[in-house]
């Protein structure tokens, strides 16, 4: 398992986490450079197993919320993350023994590493989503009764806001409105908890997995077949499970709208090659949430829908969607903790207005295979 994060590992974390983002999470070269510099100046970061930390230690998850596009213009220094960490410590009169991730996607795979490098703390190899979700209350931490508050947010001008609330959803709502008023992005720290609570409520080994995915994908040299092989191998040997190749096709239509600060809509795919004549629709709300072939749902949140560029194997985030792009679509099972009934109340398909109840991608495909009775032609055979 990965135990020490050095400068050269940062790109691999950033790369691997994009595949786990389900279309969300954002990306930022600037954050990557900041993290590399922090490690170069302050030394490597220890990546610790949840059971390598003392039970009495406090762990504080950190991240950045808001628009990565704006963040790339109103450039952070990284110290904003340390400030929010210290502010939570001060508010709770505790001392953080380690930092952890909120989500293992996009920029928020790097924010805990950057914070850890600057604050000389270890990062715990776990996070609270197993992918990207829209709201910071959409975590296993919240589902299993960890309080979001005190939540501290800071922008690049060091303007800080402390949110205290007994209701996590209310706190998230205040935070979401606040980040707009703060100029579009903010560093935040929240869900401060003791090690024993982190052990019970987090998804383990997600940072290690992101690193392995990134390392494997980089070796694939933009060959989509090799990229898919890497994803299959690494995800099968993790808490996620074996991905399914859903379809290969061309984006023929995109409907997109900004609702309450979230990029929502749907894209339409026409199948190509052995998927010719198939019509697909993928709904998204900052992340891909539902994938269906005509009226048959094939993958639904919280399972991950990964859209790959057919030419390079790079993951296509929601804000990068464009017509006439050839893509492959994978359905990845979500970690078991994310599929519990408490977590499904927060991240299930009903949350996004879908009439469907959650069914795992494995079950949906078993039903389909049972009806057809024959093996479906898969892409890399």
């Amino acid at each position, binding site marked *: 398992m990965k135990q020490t994060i050095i400068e050269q590992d940062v790109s691999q974390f950033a790369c691997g986490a994009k595949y786990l983002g389900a279309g969300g999470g954002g990306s930022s070269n600037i954050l990557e450079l900041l993290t590399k510099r922090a490690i170069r100046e302050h030394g490597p970061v220890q990546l610790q197993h949840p059971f390598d930390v003392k039970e009495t230690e406090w762990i504080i998850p950190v991240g950045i919320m808001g628009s990565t596009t704006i963040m790339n213009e109103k450039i952070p220094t990284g110290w904003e993350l340390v400030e929010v960490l210290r502010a939570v410590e001060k508010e709770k009169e505790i001392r953080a023994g380690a930092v952890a991730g909120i989500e293992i996607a996009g920029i928020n795979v790097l924010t805990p590493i950057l914070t850890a490098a600057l604050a000389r703390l270890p990062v715990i190899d776990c996070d609270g989503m197993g992918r990207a979700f829209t709201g910071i209350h959409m975590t296993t931490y919240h589902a299993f009764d960890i309080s979001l508050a005190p939540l501290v947010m800071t922008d690049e001008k060091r303007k800080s806001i402390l949110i205290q609330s007994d209701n996590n959803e209310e706190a998230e709502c205040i935070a979401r409105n606040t980040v707009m008023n703060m100029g579009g992005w903010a560093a935040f720290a929240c869900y401060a908890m003791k090690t024993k609570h982190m052990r*019970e409520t987090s998804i383990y080994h997600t940072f290690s997995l992101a690193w392995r995915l990134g390392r494997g994908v980089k070796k694939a040299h933009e060959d989509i077949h090799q990229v898919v092989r890497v994803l299959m191998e690494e995800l099968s040997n993790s808490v996620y499970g074996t991905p399914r190749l859903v379809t290969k096709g061309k984006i023929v239509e995109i409907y997109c709208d900004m609702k309450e600060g979230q990029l929502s809509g749907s894209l339409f795919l026409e199948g190509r090659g052995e998927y010719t004549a198939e019509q697909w629709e993928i709904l998204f709300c900052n992340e891909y949430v539902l994938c269906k072939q005509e009226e048959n749902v094939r993958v639904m949140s919280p399972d991950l829908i990964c859209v790959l560029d057919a030419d390079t194997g790079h993951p296509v985030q929601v804000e990068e969607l464009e017509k006439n792009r050839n893509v492959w679509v994978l359905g990845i099972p979500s970690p078991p903790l994310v599929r*519990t009934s408490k977590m499904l109340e927060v991240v299930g398909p009903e949350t996004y207005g879908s009439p469907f109840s959650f069914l795992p991608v494995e079950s949906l495909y078993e039903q389909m295979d049972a009806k057809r009775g024959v093996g479906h*032609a898969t892409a890399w055979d």
Partner: protein
Amino acid sequence: MQPPEKLDAEKKRLLQEVQVLLSMVPVPVVVTDALGNILHANAVAENVWKRSQIALTNKHIREIVEGGEIEALIKQGKPAHKIPVRIKDAANFLHMYECRIRPLFVYRKVAGAVLQFTAAPYAEHKEERRKHPVRYTFSDIRGNSDIIVSLKKQSAHIAPTDSTILIRGESGTGKEVFAQAIHATSMRKDGPFVALNCAAIPEALLESELFGYEEGSFTGAKKGGKEGRFELARGGTLFLDEIGDMPLFLQAKLLRVLQERRIERIGGTDTIPIDVRVIAATHKNLEAMIVDGRFREDLYFRLNVIPLYVPPLRNRKEDLYDLIHYFMKRCSKRLGKEQKRLSSQALKRLYDYHWPGNIREVENVVEYIMNLEIGELVTVTSLPASLREIDEKIMPKLTKEPPVETVHDNPREILTIDEKETELILKALQRFGRSTEGKKKAAASLGISIATLYRRLQKIRYEKKLSK
């Protein structure tokens, strides 16, 4: 706009082009319309099925091809491959094929399909592989710890060679899984994987199981004789599990076979050449057995060409979380129950446990939890007794807090020497496990002989029986 004659000529030219292309394909190919009526069959189809083009054309596909949902797939315009089908030729001979279907579309509507028939794997080979299938590959070996990743890499590297492998490791670590994975990656993957557990078969039968026998070689011998495992594994791999339990006389015979690459059946006169790769496995300390004279040193060196050591689970605890959730997912699907969440204390107990049964024990513990825990959160009380700190049935007194000694203390609260001895023995067994190896280690740590330990345990069981 082209004149009709020119269009007609173009159409004819295209049709001939397609016919020529199809005739150059070395396997039978058939073209149908959207309803499944055969429009064209290539020359190979005519030759192999001994039916002329006229006989094939305009017949429905179901009249020629048996098996699979061919007709439905053609109508739906669905591509598919590796569909097992049978075709009876004009001489009533049955041909086994794997069919591949590619639909044809005109103006986005299904217009027909092209069916390609490739020969199914040789029936005999398939039959052998069906009898001796391999269930595991390297992708079934779970874990991302450095030690297991390194072992998988090493195993994959030596898999394509034909060298003999000796796999060492505790019980339940997955030695056979590794053996199967190596076979599945080797040059012999199309051959059978034959396993023999040397500890499971009575000594008297082991020789006949391994080398086979001729008819009449002993009372009860089957008519026609019987092939031994060496012969059954022809072209494939022979896995000798628990090689440390093989009796000495058989070790000598095995050594000769490995050197000469020939066997003789019991009661036979012919020597039979063998074509197998041998993988052996044991959990025993062969080096100590050599010193004791219980294992042949020459056989050890013949087997130990490439040694692989499968680490115990306690040496790769970082894989425990993934393993628990893997088994939990499998179990929840089988039992139709929701997966459980583990409390911090339960997780800690699982992480602190020494896992003498390794992966097998993890699977059992998970199944126990899934069956017995009604709620969604697994606590320490939901764990099997072996994982709880103290077995409450045997030592109820030890579940209470140790008393603080004061003048008011009841002298009966202080343990007797026998009770203290029992407590220490049970704690040692808890720590090292109740297997033979565990008891040896427990005795060593307590500073008593193994015989003394057994006597004390018998006494504890006797006293427990009396107290009921």
